[in-house]
């Protein structure tokens, strides 16, 4: 769950994420990004939504991307990946990227259940916890408004 109103655009999530996955503090290799509007003092943290019906998974012809039935996690099996990169173009949210240095595609893997972005966010703008009724209510409300605005923008 994200709370953009709490995000201060500090990059802590990006740094924690890239360090966790690559051992380097490099936001370009982060699986999460904060989109910023500095003049307005607004920023929004964004990462993989672990879609119900993931586009990245649908276009992967070798079954390298799978969704765990129990946890809902959408993960990449790097060994199986043949590097066609269709998934990076297919994700409508831009949450799966290609790393030319390592020649791999990468996305959020929820750090095996302990997301470092959540751990290091100083303002609790990102949360990772069991869905409660109240949380689901909020999610539905936000999604409805999101869909409405998206229609307008397109």
């Amino acid at each position, binding site marked *: 769950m994200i709370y*953009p109103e709490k995000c201060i655009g500090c990059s802590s999530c990006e740094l924690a994420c890239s360090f966790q996955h690559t051992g380097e503090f490099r936001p370009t290799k982060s699986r999460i990004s904060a989109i910023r509007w500095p003049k307005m003092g607004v920023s929004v943290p964004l990462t993989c939504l672990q879609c119900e019906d993931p586009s990245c998974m649908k276009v992967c012809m070798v079954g390298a991307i799978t969704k765990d039935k129990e946890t809902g996690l959408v993960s990449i099996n790097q060994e199986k*990946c043949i590097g066609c990169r269709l998934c990076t173009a297919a994700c409508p949210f831009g949450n799966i990227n290609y790393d030319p240095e390592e020649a791999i595609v990468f996305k959020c893997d929820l750090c095996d259940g302990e997301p470092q972005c959540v751990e290091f966010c100083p303002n609790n703008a990102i949360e990772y916890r069991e869905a409660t009724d109240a949380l689901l209510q909020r999610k539905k409300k*936000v999604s409805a408004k999101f869909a409405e605005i998206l229609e307008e923008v397109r």
Partner: protein
Amino acid sequence: MIKIRVNGKPVAIHDEDKTLLDVIKEIGINIPALCYHPGLPARGSCRLCVVEITKPSWNGRSKIVTSCLYPCEDGLEVLTHSPKVIKLRKVIIKLLLARCSDSKELQELALQYNADVSRFGTKENEKCILCGLCTRACEEMGIEAISMVNRGWKKEVAPPYYEPPENCIGCGACAEVCPVGAIELTETNGIRRIWNREFEIQKCVECGKYFATVAQLEHLHNKYGIPLKDLKTCPECSKKRVGTVLKKTFFD
């Protein structure tokens, strides 16, 4: 459950679909397998993953099989580095190296297996070991732009009639899976060149970054019905677009 022994060590296998090579890799034994890719069907073409197998009921006889294709059978005893296997693997490395003498991957293997090339004449300027990973990758992608052509010493990987392949989408998966780096893919000024064909790379309509070939995006559009206009932004800008909508959702 299937029980086998690998180099004397007992191994229990729960997934009956696994091949010997899967098991050998899983328990941490390293054997060369250039034509093997976990995401693609095995074909046993490089022959490097050969192992010696036997069963107590075979009266001391053993046979040599390619482990990437051989299923796990109950009671199998597998030797991954027996003298017979090493000898055979060495010959295979020598033959491959004679064909592709410049390949770093093969040179490393030769060093590891102490295989010199003196017995066979070498071929000039050959990089491909004919393992077929590229053609399998292209097949799995559902594109089939390249295949093996000709037979015997004339055998090679090529697009139909050696012409720039019409149905290729320039995704580069063939080059990515090639174990010896034999497939050339270059990118300059928004043009990707592979298999003698030039592919225009899409410029992100927002930031101008080149990110995927136009043919790849058309393929996504034709096969999955994703609107083309939604495919013309790079991942970063797609993310920004979502961010913008979220910003409006929360702050306007």
